[in-house]
């Protein structure tokens, strides 16, 4: 395979976004890094298929998303996971205390169905348009829109956001939510 320095730099520049997407999607840093690595290897193996001048990030996100889902299907056969929230809690890294701020949010995110989570991440965080997100997920624009809406509503419920309070749910609400979930 031949990859010129320019392409190599572009791939490297895409890594932070790919990691952020993979971590948010899978809920696990180790798994996310494996996903990113597999994505880069697959991209390199198929680099001739990439049309120069088109959106490299969108192409890479499509590869990562497809890898994530094929792995998800494989896992699902291996492990019983009825609600699909196999991501579970993010493994909090002790050396990154500041990241604890987002623990509640990530926890809520991991409770969303995978299709809603990815739609929200693509549109609400990664900066893709609804059209680009639809291309990445291989579905209709309307489907992405409704998934994003449902994801937002579900997150609001999980985090007990009513606009007047701070984002974090109080303990009682959270305990109730968790009881309801299991």
């Amino acid at each position: 395979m031949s990859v010129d320095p320019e392409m190599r730099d572009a791939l490297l520049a895409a890594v932070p976004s790919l990691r952020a997407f993979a971590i948010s999607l899978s809920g696990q840093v180790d798994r996310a890094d494996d996903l990113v690595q597999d994505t880069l290897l697959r991209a390199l193996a198929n680099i001739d298929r990439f049309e120069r001048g088109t959106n490299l990030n969108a192409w890479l996100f499509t590869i990562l998303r497809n890898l994530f889902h094929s792995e998800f299907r494989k896992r699902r056969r291996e492990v019983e996971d009825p609600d699909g929230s196999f991501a579970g809690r993010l493994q909090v890294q002790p050396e990154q205390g500041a990241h604890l701020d987002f623990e509640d949010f990530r926890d809520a995110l991991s409770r969303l169905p995978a299709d809603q989570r990815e739609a929200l991440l693509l549109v609400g965080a990664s900066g893709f348009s609804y059209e680009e997100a639809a291309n990445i997920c291989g579905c209709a624009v309307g489907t992405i829109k409704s998934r994003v809406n449902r994801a937002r509503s579900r997150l609001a419920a999980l985090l007990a956001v009513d606009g007047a309070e701070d984002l974090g749910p109080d303990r009682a609400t959270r305990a109730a939510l968790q009881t309801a979930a299991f």
Partner: protein
Amino acid sequence: MNRDNRLARALPDQTSAPGAPAAPKLDRTAQTRIGDKLRSMYADLVQQPVPDRFTALLTKLHESDSVAEKAERKA
């Protein structure tokens, strides 16, 4: 839904959100807060240093390419 005055002030300009999704009603304040939190969580992840394995992967590839190119030229 319990809406206090603070929230009520935020509600009237709902129409000003261009292309705001209509279905399941979620008030703008809550939506904005979720959006902000999501973006700050994501920005926090994006700003993390890139693990060496990725730099190494792409650098190694570049070196092996150079070696291969030289080999091709010699051949």
